[in-house]
């Protein structure tokens, strides 16, 4: 009796701790301004104009410099522009006018310039403060004797030509955000696999469920405020965590537990999970529609500039929140009696049962915890990049890749695997086209399986 109480109080304390950390971090997020400052648009700023070609037999380089952050783009006046020939000699200069345009006539007749190339460059020091061009120089090849047009869109402050290292750091920020989200989903999947042996293809739908639960709260009429700051989405994220857990319990008690009782085989259960995934995904689309959605808050937030790296408050919060949740979840598994019981069940259900562990109860709790983590991952994914009815299905393969990479069924393996996959997908874009970043991660999975079939942290047992 005493042991039971102590066990309960300890796991309850850990749960309270987790909830407290969650709440604290979400409170920080609430304190952040939800929307970008949109009042910078100067009403008197000149619309970005088009340049009319001159009607003479010389070639002119016509250009305009527009600030694309405004809609419609506005002109950027007073920027010095130079034109150099192939040998680096400056052959023309101009300064952009009030309408953002500049005209540089190339000396001589049109014929002389045919087949040559010229470099048009902006003088960055003459740009208004706080702006950076997306491109500072363009090279033109003159092939026809018409006037040439060049555009210099001006974007947000950022390194115009960042070094590989800064670029890698910037990508690592995105990679970390993705990693912690992936790790939460992967930990749930891996725990469920570890205790029940089920390869759950419907795990992506648990993730989507979280995104949709948060959206449901967001859509409720009225706003939830605390001390003047709107926290509707934060409450939504919290609700996703709780609703995810409830949904996981429902999944287990309505479907998987009866199947385990019947002694349904694992491959059969895997196929059942595919059916469940199809079923839920289309139910979601039935009620939520097919369009890409965003929550009402945190759509556009002003990033902080740290050195050369841009970091938005929401990215930082997601990373910190994710890390806190992962630390809490792994500590639960590592140090509490419940965690020990979970690991014992994962190791050998029969033996665990023989030592007096209530295996079904442990599995039920794992389902609640795993699905709650998946729901939280879905809501945070929705906050960082928006969501639709198949957001979870889309990242399912990466979650699987993370879990298999780290070693199916291991706790640390899932987290390590998620960070490897999350960082790899983002950092690989340094060298490959961004549209191949998922391909790279999946290839990494196959290669690792070739070398270490049991995964990075899996035990070398027979898996053939």
């Amino acid at each position: 009796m005493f042991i039971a109480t102590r066990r309960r109080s300890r796991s309850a304390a850990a749960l309270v701790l987790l909830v407290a950390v969650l709440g604290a971090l979400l409170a920080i997020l609430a304190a952040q301004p939800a929307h970008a400052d949109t009042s910078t648009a100067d009403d008197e700023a000149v619309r970005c104009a088009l340049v009319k070609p001159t009607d003479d037999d010389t070639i002119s380089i016509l250009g305009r410099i527009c600030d694309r952050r405004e809609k419609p783009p506005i002109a950027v006046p007073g920027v010095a522009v130079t034109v150099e020939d192939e040998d680096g000699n400056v052959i023309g200069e101009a300064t952009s006018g009030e309408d953002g345009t500049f005209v540089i006539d190339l000396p001589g007749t049109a014929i002389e310039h045919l087949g040559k190339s010229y470099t048009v460059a902006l003088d960055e020091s003459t740009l208004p403060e706080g702006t950076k061009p997306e491109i500072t120089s363009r090279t033109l090849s003159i092939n026809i004797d018409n006037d040439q047009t060049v555009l210099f869109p001006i974007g947000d402050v950022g390194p115009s030509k960042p070094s590989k290292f800064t670029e890698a750091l910037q990508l690592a920020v995105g990679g970390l955000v993705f990693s912690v989200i992936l790790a939460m989903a992967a930990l749930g999947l891996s725990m469920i696999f570890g205790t029940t042996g089920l390869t759950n293809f419907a795990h992506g739908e648990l993730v989507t469920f979280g995104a949709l639960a948060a959206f449901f709260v967001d859509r409720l009429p009225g706003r939830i405020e605390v001390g003047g700051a709107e926290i509707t989405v934060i409450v939504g994220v919290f609700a996703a965590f709780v609703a995810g857990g409830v949904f996981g319990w429902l999944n287990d008690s309505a479907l998987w537990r009866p199947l385990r009782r019947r002694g349904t085989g694992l491959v059969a259960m895997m196929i059942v999970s595919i059916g469940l995934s199809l079923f839920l995904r289309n139910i979601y689309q039935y009620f939520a529609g097919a369009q890409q959605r965003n929550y009402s808050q945190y759509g556009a937030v002003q990033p902080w500039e740290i050195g050369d790296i841009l970091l938005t408050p929401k990215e930082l919060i997601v990373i910190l929140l994710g890390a806190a949740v992962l630390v809490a979840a792994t500590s639960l598994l590592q140090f509490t009696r419940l965690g020990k019981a979970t690991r014992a069940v994962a190791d050998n259900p029969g033996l665990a049962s023989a030592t007096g562990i209530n295996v079904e109860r442990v599995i039920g709790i794992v389902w609640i915890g795993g699905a709650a983590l998946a729901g939280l991952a879905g809501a945070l994914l929705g906050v960082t990049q928006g969501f639709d009815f198949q957001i979870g299905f889309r990242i399912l393969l990466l979650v699987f890749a993370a879990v298999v990479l780290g070693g199916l069924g291991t706790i640390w393996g899932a987290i390590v695997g998620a960070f490897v996959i999350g960082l790899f997908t983002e950092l690989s874009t340094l060298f490959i086209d961004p549209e191949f970043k998922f391909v790279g991660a999946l290839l990494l999975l196959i290669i690792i399986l070739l070398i270490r079939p049991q995964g990075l942290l899996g035990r070398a047992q027979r898996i053939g």
Partner: protein
Amino acid sequence: MDWNDLLTGSLQQALGPTAAVYCLAAIGLNIHFGYTGLLNFGQAGFMMIAGYAMVTMSTIWGLSLWLGVLLGIVLTIVFALLLGVPTLRLRADYLAIVTIAAAEIIRQVISAAKFSEDLGGQDGLTGFIGPFREVNPFSEPVGIEGVVMWSANDFWVMVIGWGLVAAACLITWLLMRSPWGRVLKSIREDEDAVRSLGKNVYAYKMQSLIIGGMFGALAGLVVTLRSATVGPSFFATDVTFFAYTVLLIGGAARVLGPVAGAVIFYFLITVLDLFFGQATSGANPIIPASIMNDTQASLMRLIFMGLGLMLLMIFRPQGLFGDRRELAIDAR
């Protein structure tokens, strides 16, 4: 509600070219899953490689579709070898994840904007169907007046498709009654026992993967010919899952299981589709638009399909015609 329309429309789909495509894909999966116990979730990848190989042969190099068919088959064999080397030594769940990942790699690479000049990106490729339609012996719509009618082009694809299905069934039957087939079945039942008899399990699994993959390739070819275009949307992950549903309805490890499964699957799917389509259309629909509009009606068949796959697997894993004793679907 036009019940006659419902039945004839469904019959048309159940015997139509698309059913033949899923039937071929399911015959391939039957070799993998039904006979050898390999959980290949990447059948869509095999289909995609073959379809694109045939089309690009004609659109990029201007060569005949026949050469494309040949290239498609060769490339699927290469793909099966590449896929088999890292995965066939793995446990069933690992194999499932890796094959699904491989199919997704194929799909994302082929549909990438970077290769869109040659491979058409998300829109896919067209303009290769001419030579195939020129040799079409049918010039009039074929069918039974008042019951089912197929256009000449559809019927031509059907003849090819169901012809290939018949050939594939014959090959499967011959293979599975041979000693080779018996080894496959015993691998499914107990791999270690087969190994202890001195058989090279790995080699047998590889051969099974290649042969089943080639049937998948045929499915890819037929689906390409049917739609006269090839694009990444035909080869999504769900296609593999549909093929599994077809296989499991008919019964795995049965030669004619995929055939029965494809016909029944398409009949039921189309009945549901037409039923909900009719129930939500018109000025005064049976189901009010506030409950279900026509976009939602088109989802109903997939909702039912997911539900059906779950119930089938729970209550009748051997399908309609399978033998439960023969199929111990459990790989752990």
